[in-house]
């Protein structure tokens, strides 16, 4: 494949308007956006959820999701206005001259077919190559993307390889027809940071080598800084501003862009505490015969926050299951105020249950959609504190005020709340039991950055007011910096390191902590290049 980069325009979107149908009417999703992309150029599209990034990315391919329609404007791809073409005409472009890399590779591969067949499907369909040739080239791409066993990995089915590998195979799939344009739709959002680095490096390399133009959609600024030549910021379906990457990072013009930049700057001064409220002692736990936790020791000081950091599969959430009694440890125990808790939920008294409460990642599914806010919050308040009638209602209103919502929310259903409001209701539900320890399991991971900031500030204030102790489970280092006093780093079911935040974040680090911390992308556009150099790729 030869490098296609030159200075001619490949894609030009003019005053594009897209509407989506929901709640019985059409809503404007994209409100007149212009976009231009030269051959071989990478454009970053960034904004929060609902900004219309994905809709715009798909529209660049002339595709609209079911329930959406284009109401105005032009999408000129290499001189052809895609808005005026039928689906069967556009199919000749899709999977041939333009390809797509989706957010969740695990869900975007067909479980019924082998990976190499899926990688080369569109190339063979378009008649670009014969099967042998396409297979050989796919294997070469696997190799170029640093996949293990590039010769044979294609014979596997999607469930037989890891998420990071799938994401790279999807990149190979997008590269296979040697397209002019690739749309990357949040391709690394679902990955762990250490995996993300490898995938980013592989994607950037391959796009550069072949000079393919790309639109890179993400909500993560530091990621887009590594990938894009130019950045366009979107909000509510409109362009906020656009500039070359370095210029944008150095001097963003608009207030909204600046607010995106400054969100991750909350820093909490750490405080020591001698009193230990909760202690996990020498815990070993199993799922069937699988050894998930190996000799875990964690101490939670009174009124402080211990952040549990690690990648998916490291056992963070399992620690929460052991503490709450959902999973009985094989060896070891959990002590609350120096008294051992019964290992299983069933053995614990109401009083013991009340003291430890949990908040979950997916506020959406952690609430019964058929219950009102009042039902959701009042249940623990009446169950643990025995409140009824007017007293119960008063308590619910008081709890709503604690989470900065007012009485008007009391009769709403979860579906009538925004993501941030849902998570606040979940916090209120935990508080309703009057807990002393709250376990927060990735509570901000599903939220936009600005909403995250609000939730983190709320949790900080509640800690001060109610003297709560938090175990904060997260994979996000910025969140750790924002909320914790102490940090526990976990990897493969073991505690790598535990200590005050300042100790953990200052060198020297154990090997794994070093890998984890250095993999967190930074705003510097040279970060990835420098990191790869340092790691000797």
């Amino acid at each position, binding site marked *: 494949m030869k490098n296609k980069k030159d200075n001619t325009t490949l894609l030009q979107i003019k005053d594009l308007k897209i509407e989506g149908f929901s709640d019985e009417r059409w809503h404007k999703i994209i409100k007149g956006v212009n976009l231009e992309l030269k051959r071989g150029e990478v454009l970053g599209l960034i904004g929060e959820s609902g900004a219309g990034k994905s809709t715009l990315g798909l529209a660049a391919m002339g595709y609209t999701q079911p329930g959406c329609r284009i109401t105005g404007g032009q999408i000129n791809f290499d001189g052809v206005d895609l808005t005026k073409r039928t689906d069967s005409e556009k199919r000749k*472009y899709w999977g041939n001259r333009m390809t*797509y890399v989706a957010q969740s590779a695990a*869900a975007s591969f067909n*479980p019924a077919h082998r990976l190499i067949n899926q990688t080369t499907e569109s190339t063979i369909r378009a008649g670009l190559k014969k099967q042998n040739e396409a297979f050989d080239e796919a294997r070469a791409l696997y190799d170029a993307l640093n996949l293990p066993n590039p010769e044979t990995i294609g014979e*596997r*089915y999607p469930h037989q390889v890891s998420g990071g590998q799938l994401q790279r195979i999807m990149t190979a799939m997008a590269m296979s027809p040697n397209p002019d344009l690739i749309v990357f739709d949040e391709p690394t959002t679902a990955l762990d940071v250490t995996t993300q680095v490898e995938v980013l490096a592989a994607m950037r390399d391959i796009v550069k080598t072949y000079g393919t133009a790309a639109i890179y959609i993400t909500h993560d600024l530091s990621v887009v800084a590594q990938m894009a030549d130019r950045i366009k910021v979107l909000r509510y379906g409109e362009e906020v501003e656009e500039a070359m990457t370095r210029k944008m990072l150095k001097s963003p013009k608009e207030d909204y862009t600046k607010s995106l930049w400054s969100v991750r700057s909350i820093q909490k001064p750490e405080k020591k505490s001698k009193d230990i409220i909760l202690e996990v002692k020498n815990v070993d736990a199993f799922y069937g015969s699988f050894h998930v936790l190996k000799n875990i020791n964690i101490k939670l000081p009174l009124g402080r926050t211990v952040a549990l950091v690690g990648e998916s599969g490291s056992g963070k959430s399992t620690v929460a299951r052991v503490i709450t009694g959902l999973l009985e440890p094989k060896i070891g125990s959990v002590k609350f105020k120096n008294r051992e808790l019964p290992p299983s939920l069933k053995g614990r008294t109401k009083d013991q249950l009340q003291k430890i409460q949990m908040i979950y990642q997916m506020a959406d599914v952690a609430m019964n959609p058929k219950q009102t806010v009042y039902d959701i919050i009042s249940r623990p308040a009446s169950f643990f504190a025995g409140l009824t009638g007017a007293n119960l209602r008063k308590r619910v209103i008081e709890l709503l005020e604690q989470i900065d919502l007012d009485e008007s929310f009391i009769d709403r259903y979860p579906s009538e709340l925004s993501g941030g409001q849902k998570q606040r209701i979940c916090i209120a539900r935990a508080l309703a039991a009057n807990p002393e320890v709250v376990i927060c399991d990735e509570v901000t991971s599903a939220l936009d950055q600005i909403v995250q900031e609000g939730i983190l500030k709320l949790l900080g204030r509640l800690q001060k007011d109610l003297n709560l102790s938090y175990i904060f489970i997260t994979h996000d280092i910025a969140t750790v910096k924002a909320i914790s006093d102490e940090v526990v780093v976990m990897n493969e079911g073991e505690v790598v390191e535990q200590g005050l935040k300042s100790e953990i974040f200052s060198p020297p680090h154990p090997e794994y902590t070093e890998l984890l911390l250095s993999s967190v992308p930074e705003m510097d556009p040279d970060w990835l290049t420098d990191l790869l150099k340092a790691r000797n790729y």
Partner: protein
Amino acid sequence: MHPVVKTVLERLGLGLATLFFVSIIIFSAIEMLPGDFGQAILGQAALPETVAAFRQELGLDKPAHIRYFDWALGAIQGDLGTSFSGRNASGADRSAEVVDKIAPRLWNTLFLASMAALIAVPLSLILGILTALYRNSFFDRSVNTATLTTISFPEFFVAYILILFFASLNQIFPSLANVDPDTNLGERIYRTALPAFTLTLVIVAHMMRMTRAAIINLLASPYIQMAKLSGASQTEIILKHALPNAWAPIATVIAFNLAYLVVGVVVVEVVFVYPGVGQLMVDAVRTRDIPVVQGCALIFAVTYILLNLIADIIGIVTNPRLLHPK
């Protein structure tokens, strides 16, 4: 051992265990039937001694659990016992082996079921795929309405309507499906056409709608959007990307309907005077011919278990997660 082989063997074992419990239920249920066979045959006037002697001859005086084991051991060896009918008060014994009574009837039933299945299964799959492909179109709505209409009428009504149009007003097919072992294949197909059509109309809706629903359910998956964006046409998306992932639920519904074709067609048999197992069983219940009732019930149970087992196996071998474990 490959995990699929292991799972299949497990299912087979479970199937056998189910059959064992079902055989106990069949046996106990018949024990609980009111009335006494001896009394029924010999009449109200028979002396108690005569009845007792008759019962002894048939082995009805032995305790229930012993009779169950005799019966079950026989059944395993293919011997379902001797029919009670053909005996009378005068002591003449023209009774037949249950197996000999059931075998020709079962053959007839299986023949009719296969005919109906050969028409209904491909028809439902094709209609299901087409309605999924052209969902919400006029074609989709017409097919849905038509199949729902035919499933909503009682079987005997559908049967009489078909007789009216195809046997009475236009004499295309015979209204009676009387076959015997000497009927040749062509004649057999011709005579069983109307009952087979009736059964087809009754079962198509269920299978077709399940196929449609299973496919449409998958069309919202991210990998289907991915297939669209790689330039696949609608037909390719449904046949290559959705259908391979939809076999498990479809197979379950097909198995369910095939089982119905074997065990549930007594009404259709009566309407067309077709000599199938259903009629035999109803007759046997009426004459208190216990070994025949038990034999039929056991065969029905085997049919259900076997077909469901096959559906399970299809579900397993079409799931790459099970076929190709990590």
